[in-house]
């Protein structure tokens, strides 16, 4: 694998940073333009999968440790659920974001409904990203059944 496919390896190296950057854009700009947590998670995972396809599964597993990725599957759902719990503790209903209103750093940090959506999209993105990576690792790591 090392010496083979130099064009693929160079092009993948060029593309992966931009794929990651685009995924972050889709994640954090999803409130304003098209996109959101699901799409961002898939695109972010696609960069890792491209890396795994070109440089081998072992290299990809060194970058994204399987047990860390598996933990992030749960962390994403927990971020989403915790947002709901926080709105409950703040006196609102479950996922009623406008109780998240605050007055720190006005205009820079998201607040209120915007903050709530930001948090749950982050949770969705983390879960989708780690589930896609995990499924890829599981599929690609299987040996052919003899």
């Amino acid at each position, binding site marked *: 694998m090392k010496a083979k496919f130099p064009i693929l390896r160079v092009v993948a190296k060029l593309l992966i940073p931009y794929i990651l950057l685009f995924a972050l854009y*889709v994640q954090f700009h*999803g*409130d*304003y*333009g*098209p*996109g*959101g947590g*699901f*799409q961002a998670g*898939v*695109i972010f*995972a*696609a960069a890792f*999968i491209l890396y795994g*396809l070109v440089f081998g599964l072992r290299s990809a597993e060194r970058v994204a440790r399987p047990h860390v990725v*598996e933990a992030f*599957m*749960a962390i*994403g*759902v927990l971020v*989403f*659920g915790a947002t*709901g719990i926080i709105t409950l503790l703040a006196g609102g209903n*479950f*996922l*009623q*974001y*406008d109780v998240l*209103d605050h007055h720190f750093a*006005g*205009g820079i940090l998201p*607040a*209120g*409904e*915007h903050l*709530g*959506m930001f948090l*749950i*999209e982050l*949770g*969705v993105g983390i*879960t*989708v990203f*780690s*589930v*896609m990576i*995990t*499924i*890829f690792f*599981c*599929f*690609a*790591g*299987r*040996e*052919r*059944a003899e």
Partner: protein
Amino acid sequence: MLDNELFIIIPLLSLLACTAVTVARMRDLWAAAMLTGIFSILGAGWMIVLDAPDVAFTEAAVGAGISTVLMLGTLALTSRKAKPPKRFPWTALIIVSITGSALIYGTHDLPDFGDPNAPIHLYPNPGYVALEIAKGEPHGHESHEDDAGGHATDSAHDEAHDSHHESVDSTDAEHETSHESAHHGNTPNVVTVVLASYRGFDTLGETSVIFTAGIAVLILLRRRSGQESAS
């Protein structure tokens, strides 16, 4: 729909149909997997024509990207060729024809593309989307969610008839509580608003479904350390 869009729509839909027929007739599974990826890319283009970039994103990333990779990964473990069928699958052809005709028959009840009086724009709460958009304007006025809901139900009746969303904006300005400043404004992408706020419980459920799918794949396919050497 604009007439000049027909130059995009007709080739796009013809290519979609050609790809679908080719995939169905193909025995080489590797090529079929690649063609389903092409089908997804064409579908993503079609979604762009329909002004649904969010769906197009998902279609391109999941359909053309991830699922093609997963299908190729599966093919690496199994055979690359499908066995030719022993006899012509008449039952499948009849079922597909009946389902297809039912679907085409069903499209006659669908509203026209971009129809402002389509049920999706009027139910369950016609003012909601307009209010969310109004809140998303940089200098727009804000109102509380429950206030917005109540006001929207009040205006639901006349809203259903004239569907002037700007009128909701102006009347809402009188009702608004105005203790929140402009930077607390909502997000302008109405798809995000609907998914995250209006249907937040649904989205939590969907995220849990994805999580469950990941757990299920892990349970079924995970390689235990040392298993490779043992088997």
